[in-house]
């Protein structure tokens, strides 16, 4: 291959890679309104709630179990005089069993007509993701995909955005 040809090929490849990087950057941090999210951990993965749905984040207090209810409902907690139902999203998503640890947090979420707590392994950050929310990947297990409003890319990783209403639907 002639030297000129090689140079042309290298330049073309460099230009293509530059365009690819710009496209990826645009997808993650491009123009348009951002999506405010609260990032938290569940079973080693990052998930998020839309920040507008989050009322507060608290340390887990004593949770009173209520017999005869589905396992994903951990019970009720007295949050400054308010009786807060606490749910285990890990059980719903099939990524383990939630236990209250010192790092664990209860994310208090507003839902129509009620306020509910979700036990998370830990809260990571409040972020604003540029770009749009994509539908859940087709390869995700149905058990997880059904609870996702969509997915966003944050720091190169896909983050599932949980759908509060679906999480609160009565489980059979």
């Amino acid at each position: 291959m002639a030297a000129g040809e090689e140079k042309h090929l290298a330049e073309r490849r460099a230009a293509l890679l530059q365009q690819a990087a710009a496209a990826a950057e645009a997808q993650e941090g491009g123009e348009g309104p951002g999506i405010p999210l609260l990032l938290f951990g569940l079973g080693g993965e990052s998930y998020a709630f839309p920040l507008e749905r989050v009322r507060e984040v608290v340390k887990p207090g004593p949770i009173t179990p209520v017999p005869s209810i589905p396992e994903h409902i951990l019970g009720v907690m007295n949050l400054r005089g308010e009786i807060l139902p606490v749910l285990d999203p890990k059980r719903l998503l099939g990524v383990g069993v939630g236990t209250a640890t010192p790092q664990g947090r209860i994310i208090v979420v507003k839902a129509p007509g009620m306020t509910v707590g979700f036990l998370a392994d830990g809260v990571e950050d409040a972020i604003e993701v540029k770009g749009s929310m994509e539908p859940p990947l087709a390869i995700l297990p149905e058990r997880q995909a059904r609870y996702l409003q969509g997915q966003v890319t944050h720091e190169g990783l896909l983050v599932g955005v949980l759908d509060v209403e679906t999480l609160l639907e009565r489980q059979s």
Partner: protein
Amino acid sequence: MVGDTSLEVLCFRLGGVLWGIEADQVDRIARSEEAPEGSVVDATRALGVAARECETGRRLVLRRGSARAILSVDEVLDLVPFSPNDLAALPPVIAGALPDQRIWAVGKMGDEILLLLDVATLCGADAPAEDVDGSEEG
């Protein structure tokens, strides 16, 4: 005038859970070796918990009209007055997940939460119809 609206509740533990029943729905408390008359409530079936066999065990004789129902419990704790501020409805996400209306409210006791039992639902879940008929005998 708190006394006018407060509710006196008999608090007890059953299956490790803190429960309460309005005091005026409890006829008396019997020792576990007694066999008071009345239909026996199967707590496992009615509440999803079982009484432990222990020295502190008691039998609550519950009033349901003229009928009596017996509920074995792990331990009777105390009679506690609850003001309306100490009571709250069961959150809908939990009430909707229960098979019936056995818990009509929750009571706040510091960090702990007490589950207030509805005797009519409790007895209805187990006792024969003639035993749980709430109508007064003529």
